[in-house]
């Protein structure tokens, strides 16, 4: 006897956010990355359409990262000091379709780079590569309020995704993004209520909720991943049931969290039983990413090319099959 699937019908869908603008749209990107648009929970193809696949943004920094483990530095060893070369390497060698520039060097404790210099860097990266760009501030509110508007202006017309707006500091960034035609990352501390409140506050300033990408804040495997999962699932259930203020794609900072885990970076000499760290760190990042994809992540900011390659394969596998995929 044929089994019939019980299907859930949803009334709403996640909004589609376009990152990047081509020449016709007033920018200089070779293509536009579309994220979101799902009318169902992750990969339940029979229940609703899933028009866009999850995408991975390669994370690059404006200055050489000091605390990255060797495994992570190794693939970019020759370019870590030069953000332009680093960007080019991601696109040329690793076929990156999206870049995420982290302006860590602007932080008062790690370089204190000037807003003008960061803006110039953004401009030069946009000239060097033609993929769309995500720009993330250093996390120091006062400094980000100087740096990000400058970068936003420098990238005017390119329809970047810029972050992060937080509940106590969103107004300056929203105003900049609104003026320069970008999208915004709205970051909340693993709290569905604050996520929604922030989206309401941002849209109250006149930026359409369709230009918001939610950073729900995630934890790596073993560090609260399941908590992030439940928050993302609750947000999606609300969004699909008609809550427009929750109907935004997710961006997850996978690399940052996964490579903070002791299990990802500890050397084999310290923990012989854990096996070689070169494989372990990559696996940790890849597994964190795949779990988050199943939670509904739309943009994954990742670091190691090998991990990215694995996850891209996983995504392709999920997306090429319009049935619920079987494990291989």
């Amino acid at each position, binding site marked *: 006897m044929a089994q019939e699937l019980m299907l859930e019908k949803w009334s709403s869908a996640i909004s589609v956010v376009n990152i990047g603008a081509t020449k016709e749209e007033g920018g200089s990107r070779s293509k536009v990355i579309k994220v979101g648009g799902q009318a169902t929970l992750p990969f339940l193809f029979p229940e609703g359409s899933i028009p866009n696949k999850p995408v991975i943004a390669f994370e690059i920094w404006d200055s050489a990262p000091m605390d990255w483990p060797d495994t992570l530095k190794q693939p970019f060893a020759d370019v870590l000091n030069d953000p332009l070369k680093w960007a080019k390497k991601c696109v040329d060698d690793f076929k990156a379709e999206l870049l995420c520039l982290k302006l860590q060097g602007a932080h008062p404790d790690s370089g204190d780079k000037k807003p003008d210099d960061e803006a110039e860097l953004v401009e030069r990266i946009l000239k060097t590569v033609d993929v769309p760009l995500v720009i993330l501030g250093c996390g120091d509110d006062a400094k980000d309020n100087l740096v990000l508007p400058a970068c936003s202006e420098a990238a005017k017309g390119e329809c970047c995704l810029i972050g992060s707006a937080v*509940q106590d500091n969103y*107004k300056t960034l929203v105003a900049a993004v609104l003026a320069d035609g970008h999208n915004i990352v709205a970051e909340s501390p693993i*709290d569905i*209520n*604050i996520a*929604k*409140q922030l989206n*309401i*506050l941002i849209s*109250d300033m006149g930026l359409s909720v369709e230009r918001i990408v939610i950073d729900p804040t995630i934890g790596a495997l073993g560090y609260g991943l399941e908590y992030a999962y439940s928050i993302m699932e609750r947000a999606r259930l609300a969004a699909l049931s008609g*809550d427009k*203020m929750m109907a935004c794609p997710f961006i997850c900072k996978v690399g940052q969290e996964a490579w903070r885990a002791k299990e990802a970076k500890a050397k084999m000499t310290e923990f012989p039983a854990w096996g070689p760290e070169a494989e372990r760190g990559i696996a940790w990042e890849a597994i964190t990413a795949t779990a988050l994809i199943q939670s509904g992540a739309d943009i994954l900011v990742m670091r190691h090319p090998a991990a990215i390659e694995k996850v891209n394969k996983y995504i392709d596998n999920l997306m090429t099959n319009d049935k619920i995929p079987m494990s291989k």
Partner: protein
Amino acid sequence: MGKFKITFYPDNKTIEVEKGKTILSAAISAGVYINSSCGGDGVCGRCKVIVKRGQVVSQPSGRIKPEERKQGIYLACLTTIQSDLEVEIPAESRIDMDKLTQDEIDLRLKGLFSESEDVQAQESAGKEIFSHSPLATKLYLELPPPNLEDKISDLERLYRQIQRIREIPIMQTGLSNIRHLGELLRNSDWKVTVTLGKRNETTEIVLIEPGDTSVKNFGLAFDIGTTTISGQLVDLNNKKILGTKATYNKQASFGSDVITRIIYAQQQDGLEKLHHTVIDSMNQIIRELVKENNIDLNNVNCILCAGNTTMVHLLLKVDPTYIRKEPYIATANFVPTTRAAESGIKINPRGLLSCVPGVSSYVGGDITAGVLSCAIEDEEDLCLLIDVGTNGEVVLGSREFLISAAASAGPAFEGSGVACGVRAGRGAIQKVKIAAKTFEVSYDTIGKANPVGICGSGYIDILSGMLETGILDKDGKIKEISSKRIRDGENGREFVIVFKEDTASSSDIVISEVDIENIKRAKAAIYSAAITLVKHMELDFKDIKKIFIAGGFGTYLNIDNAIKIGLLPDLERERFIFVGNSSLAGARQILLSYEAMKRANEIARKMSYFELSTEVKYMDEYMAALFFPHTDLANFPSIKIK
């Protein structure tokens, strides 16, 4: 150790105290009131005094600005006495404590609303549903003198005569009455008046007097609130209210919430002090009521009190320590009727004191009385009672069931923990309108006095107005708008309500982002308590047909504004019923009817208590309510704030 003379102005009261005592403690001994929300911990900054003459030693405090220190301003609680002193208490540190004016009492009891919301607080208590059988009854008896055929004893004779008039099965009499009985009956020609008191299930002969005094039978109903104490004198024969008085609960000097007071009670003499403070306030009210009505104190035969569990413990001088400690157990929720004199209440020395039974450690007899006076247990339709106070209680139910919860809302709505907050007394800004675009503020104060600060209802109007005019974002942050009223202050950005030229104090009356945060938390606690309780019963706000708003503060509520800030659920405004002081109304009903007393006992037994602090969903609801009006705007369809 030397003693020094301290003189307080403008009271002009002098007291001798030992060197090294604080000015605050000297003021309490002298019977001079100084605000002290934190109970003398030096954190609230409310007890500023000016030392005019003499030597003091003061601990440093961030609450005193350098220029204030130059003017000789100190915190009374952190400043010790080193010589004879002359101390002035500025207006901002001394709200008219002694008495509310009659106007203010009327406001408190009847309610006060804006023109558009001109709803009278409904005396739902007025419903004549309970038979008239007061806590104390007087009967005039003409006994047949004994003779050789009718030889029963004097006491049995008295009982027999009573039972001929009333069906009273069980009776008891104190030895002191019996000792005088033989002589009394014979001296009064066998014509006496007996006062019968209900003592739980039995009836007691409280008093036997010669002749007929039965027309003079009075009783008192009291609501003992954390902030305000209200008392009412009632003629027990005809149920007439002869007068109502209110005074602030002077226990506030020991802390503005029940928890701080429970902690204070554990200090040496702490319980004693708290007990005496409340009894003094009550006796003061009683004295004035009796005097104004020209009544002999001996004809006041009973007093009925409703209060939260902690207040009742302190009233009876019962240690409240275990209310605060897990698993939060009160010494008694159902307190047997006792003699009022045992607790120091000055009425007829043999008069009775009864307390409305409570439900749990955090839902007290005031709520039982509230439910009784709103007659929720008689309603077929679903009702909700919200008592907006420091401890925000919520009761959901009908004839079928009653469930209660208590949320620690904090004292923001009662004017504590907010920089320019005052209790709803003389000079408190209670009604506010903010003009669009110009942001000009118009306001009303209680008693039309010069403004001294803002009370709860004023804060609700202010927040609603700030949201509506776009000064405030939904998160409670003041926007960067160029206006002379918006500026950066010590506690973040602030909005000026009244400039100092127009106030009774020497500084501007403002609302800061920190204040707004406190009010946001208070309203979130109350709203989320209500919604958690409603959802726990698998119901919806829409199912609730009547919402009773109670509390001294609640009587001032502008419903529409309270909904706009998300304190109350967004339902048709007609469903809200103001009941003013429902606790006092319930206490009066019980005073006048034994039936009501039995009903109150049933209510307290029937009502279940839902503990919010261990409920995971409550925290989630609370987070969602920390927004104006609420994160889930779909629940506030009538609110269109841009």
